[in-house]
């Protein structure tokens, strides 16, 4: 009995020695700031008192202020609209490209790899490239649309709310498609071939095979791609900040850019912290579902 206890204690110490450095880092750099952020949102921290102290506890006043400010509702609506359109396009496009590149033809793996590149490109560069392409005067998109006679006058893409939103959505889709494509292509390669052969013998059409076999078998991967896609899109910051700065007006302002503006343009740190907390709570609703998926997979893997 004492030897097992001793062994167990030795094991615990060993475990701690491996995990403690990272754990201390996480406590100092992530957990403490999360709680500190909550504390800031219940005080009145601004440029005058953030360094020297002297801010006061104001209870729920900051939350009352931001919920009364129509900009919060506008930003929430924009965040949802942005996320909705991005997922609506990037998922089917990524799926279609994944289907294409999971066929066996010469060069398929290489082409699939090359199409992965946009996902790795820093958001600020993506924003720069698309701001150039959507430029009203010399942008390639206006030129293409005029030469195809789809539009007669150049569109001032970033000068109007709806077209500015469309522009940031397109840029984000470009970065998001490879992510959907690679995850779905990987899942497609694991599908059992004999099921398809049996379906072909039974006379199932390609459309039937897709909806009756591919979609049901791919459901876990699709769920994971959509949840992660939602999380990454919902918290987007760099792209919007660089391409439109949240404008024109507040037409592309999302929750993370609003939090940044409150804290670092208006130096109202408490309001910035409060908006960031609202964003985090909303993200965690979907986030907890994702964590549930991860835990489920963990259990299935160890069950094998």
């Amino acid at each position, binding site marked *: 009995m004492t030897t097992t206890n001793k062994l167990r204690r030795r094991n615990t110490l060993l475990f701690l020695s491996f995990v403690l450095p990272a754990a201390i880092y996480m406590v100092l750099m992530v957990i403490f700031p999360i709680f500190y952020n909550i504390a800031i949102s219940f005080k009145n921290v601004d440029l005058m008192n953030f360094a020297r102290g002297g801010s006061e506890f104001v209870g729920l006043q900051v939350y009352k202020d931001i919920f009364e400010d129509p900009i919060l509702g506008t930003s929430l609506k924009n965040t949802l609209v942005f996320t909705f359109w991005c997922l609506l396009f990037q998922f089917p496009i990524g799926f279609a490209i994944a289907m294409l590149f999971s066929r066996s033809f010469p060069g398929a793996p290489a082409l699939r790899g090359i199409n992965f590149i946009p996902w790795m490109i820093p958001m600020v560069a993506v924003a720069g490239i698309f701001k150039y392409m959507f*430029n009203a005067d010399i942008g390639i998109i206006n030129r293409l649309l005029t030469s195809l006679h789809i539009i007669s006058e150049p569109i001032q893409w970033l000068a109007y709310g709806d077209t500015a939103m469309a522009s940031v959505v397109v840029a984000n889709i470009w970065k998001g498609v490879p992510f959907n494509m690679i*995850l779905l292509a990987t899942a497609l390669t694991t599908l059992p071939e004999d099921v398809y052969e049996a379906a072909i013998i039974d006379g199932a059409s390609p459309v039937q095979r897709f909806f009756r076999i591919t979609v049901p078998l791919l459901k876990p991967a699709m769920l994971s791609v959509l949840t992660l896609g939602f999380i990454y899109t919902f918290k987007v910051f760099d792209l919007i900040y660089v391409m439109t700065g949240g404008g024109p007006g507040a037409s592309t302002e999302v929750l993370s850019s609003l939090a940044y503006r409150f804290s670092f343009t208006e130096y109202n740190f408490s309001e910035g912290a409060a908006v960031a907390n609202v964003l985090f709570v909303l993200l965690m609703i979907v986030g907890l579902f994702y964590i549930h998926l991860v835990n489920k997979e963990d259990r299935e893997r160890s069950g094998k």
Partner: protein
Amino acid sequence: MSIAMKQKQKASRVIYLILGIAVTCLFLFPLYWMVSTSLRAPGSTFINPSFFPESIQFTAYVLETENGVSIWSYFMNSVVVSLGTTILTTILAIPAAYAIGRFRNKTVSTIIFIFLVAQMMPSSLILTPLFVTFSNLGLINNHLGVMLADATITIPFSVIILRTYFKDIPKELEEAALIDGAGPYATFLRIMVPVTYPGIITAISMSLIMSWGDMVFSLTLLTKDSLRTLPLILYKAMGELGVRWEVLMAYATIVILPIIIMFVFLQRFLISGLTAGSVKG
């Protein structure tokens, strides 16, 4: 298989190949457009740039920024920040991932939960507290501050990737080393770490890419121009240079180039990094 069927299959392969190349050209067109714009003569982008540049010039790549500094000195700042972040990440994430991948106790699931939450957390959540704390600690305008902040993204990501690699190592391998008389730390360093090298390369390259591309922490924590990183300079230049698109696209190319080079050599590891970092189903 009949000859007719084989021919049909061959034809469909050719069609797929043509389709695949067409999709790739269309999808990667923005990158072509960026590079081809960056190679144009100064001022030539005021008028509609042609599909192919008339002459190739590297003027935009050697131009100094508004502050009279070469773009390549900001490149070096980015190198310092991303290398520092990656070293910090590697040192902290590998042992932690090993611990939560191999040990079984009550705290493991809590620790995994914290890393998963951290992976999903928006940067803006910790931005205000970090700015306030770092101001008091003198870590504003300090590359160390940016490294510590960037690691809030790279450490959770690396731990989550690496734990699956450590988890998949057969128990016998570890036990054999322990029976041979190797201590637990020697086993970890000489057996476990070398065996998981594909995961470690993946974690290192993902950390390099993520910290290389960070803008929000540099934007908030670096106000001194000489310390700024490349993504931040690209952003600032977009406001200052306005329509000098050949220069802006040269900056964008310089930001992207190291990533393309890494991709050429480490494609396999980078793709598995994405798939290992999420639920495969």
